[in-house]
């Protein structure tokens, strides 16, 4: 479905120095710096896959999405999307894809969403019968009935995002790019969006690429993740395996019958949190068994579970690492 080989996207940025004199000089002699937004990325995505792009701000995720959707021309490298070269922007290609951006809207601001749906039907040349069927399905799945008659500006952010998503799916894209689709939404609305996106993928076999700051989105939707950092691909594979790699330690969560003091916990492993009757320990993977049996024998344990480190923490550690590396490169 998607094949990307050695994709690079470099910008020439004109450095404008402060001050009038310097500004005048820069008219004649301009100084440029090259920003390497994407610097040699390769991957393949099969039809129907759900892939999450992870990376800190400015890592090149959105740039990659824009290249894949034909909005940006790559500086070099080869990009194929379902037999098309995106930058040629053929109609057949544009009718297969859609990009949903959480921070940019396509809904007509002062008109009801129904008008945007109708507009997209005409623009994407969707047959009436199919349009009606798709719309009915979207309206019932996303519970839009009440919303599509009101001007978009009167909708709440969550309601608007649901309509935004519906507008993007009128032409049943085979390939859906989602750039921070749940940004700013409350937890239950995030969950609604996730469930819907997943079911769209399952029902229509659409391929899905997602970037998000909410790890829950990625965990719930994407069996496969691609980590982009400083414009380079630093990981491509399953989410669990990534967690294993970044944080090989497991967490042992203890619920106790009565409070114990910190000294009795310390020998078991690194104490992450400890209050009154619950304690969380961090231990290397191969020491999990030993720790568990020692805890059971030495402490008044009521309940015990072994978990992976929370995703958010894994990610912030991953990105902090890369930031530290970047710091040394910059110095």
């Amino acid at each position: 479905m998607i094949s990307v080989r050695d994709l690079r996207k470099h910008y020439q940025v004109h450095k404008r120095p402060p001050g009038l004199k310097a500004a005048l000089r820069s008219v004649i002699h301009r100084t440029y710096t090259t920003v390497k937004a994407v610097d040699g990325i390769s991957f393949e995505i099969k039809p129907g896959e759900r892939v999450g792009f992870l990376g800190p701000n400015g890592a090149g995720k959105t740039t990659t999405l824009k290249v894949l959707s034909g909005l940006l021309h790559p500086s070099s490298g080869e990009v194929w999307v379902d037999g098309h070269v995106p930058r040629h922007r053929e109609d057949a290609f544009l009718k297969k894809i859609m990009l949903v951006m959480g921070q940019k809207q396509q809904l007509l601001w002062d008109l009801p969403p129904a008008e945007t749906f109708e507009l997209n039907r005409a623009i994407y040349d969707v047959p009436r019968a199919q349009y009606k069927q798709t719309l009915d399905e979207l309206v019932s799945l996303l519970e839009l009935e009440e919303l599509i008659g009101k001007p978009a500006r009167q909708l709440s952010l969550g309601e608007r995002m649901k309509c935004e998503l519906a507008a993007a799916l009128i032409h049943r894209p085979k390939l859906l790019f989602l750039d921070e689709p749940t940004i700013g939404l409350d937890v239950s609305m995030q969950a609604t969006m996730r469930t819907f996106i997943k079911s769209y993928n399952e029902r229509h076999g659409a391929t899905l690429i997602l970037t998000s700051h909410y790890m829950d989105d990625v965990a719930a939707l994407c069996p496969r993740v691609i980590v982009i950092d400083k414009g380079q691909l630093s990981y491509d594979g399953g989410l669990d395996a990534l967690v294993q790699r970044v944080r090989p330690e497991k967490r042992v969560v203890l619920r106790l019958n009565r409070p114990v003091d910190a000294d009795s916990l310390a020998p078991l492993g690194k104490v992450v949190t400890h209050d009154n009757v619950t304690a969380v320990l961090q231990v290397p993977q191969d020491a999990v068994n030993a720790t568990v049996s020692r805890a059971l024998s030495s402490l008044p344990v009521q309940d015990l579970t072994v978990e992976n480190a929370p995703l958010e923490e894994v990610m912030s550690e991953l990105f902090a690492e890369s930031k530290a590396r970047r710091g040394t490169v910059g110095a």
Partner: protein
Amino acid sequence: MLRRYLRLLGVQLRASSLLAMQYRGDFVIEGIISLFWTATALAPLFVVYRERQSIAGWSFGEALLVIGWFTLLQGILEGAINPSLTGVVEHIRKGTLDFVLLKPADAQFLVSTTRFLPWRSINALAGIGLFVYGFHLIGRPPSLLGVLTSLVLLGTSVLLLYSLWILTVSAAFYVVRVDNLTYFFTSIFDAARWPASVFRGVLAFVFTFVIPLAVMTTFPAQAMLDRLPWMSLVWAVVGSLGFALLSRRVWLLSIGRYTSASS
């Protein structure tokens, strides 16, 4: 109280000047654009006076004085009044006016002093240039009394202009999309470049009492020519104070509506 507000004004002016110093390149561009605008404002005048020596009792040189006042006031409008009040319109649209209302000072004062564009004052220079040329054509200098009266009228004109703007901005609380309110205001103000006696009937009434453009440019020009009846001067002062009070009332009403309506 007054000292506090003067100090606040000083702070805001300083910030705007610092900002303006950063964009010194704009000085040249603004200068060119302002000259260009003055030239286009003169074009219809040339066309009209190609046909006649005097129109509605105004010779070419005298009409130049009216355009001079128009240009001067335009400079004040664009440099000191427009920028901050366009900011209010933006605040209302983005819903960030609440931040302004939270501050412990008068909201109208705060919003009208947020931003100044000092480079736009070049327009005022162009206006003064027109005065000089106008009097050169008339062939005599203005009297001292005339200049003094016209300076008083400068005050009333600025007050009128500001009050009109406050009224326009108050409309922004009621209209959905307000981008073109500024455009509307400047295009209505355009009519002030002609001597008021040109207009008759409905327009004369509108431009004297509803949108007092006549008072803003024609009165000071008449004062410079020692032609302004004393009663008109009194009317201008009383009228502009009345207008200021009216606009203040309307502003308070609109703000009240805004604070009670926003959720």
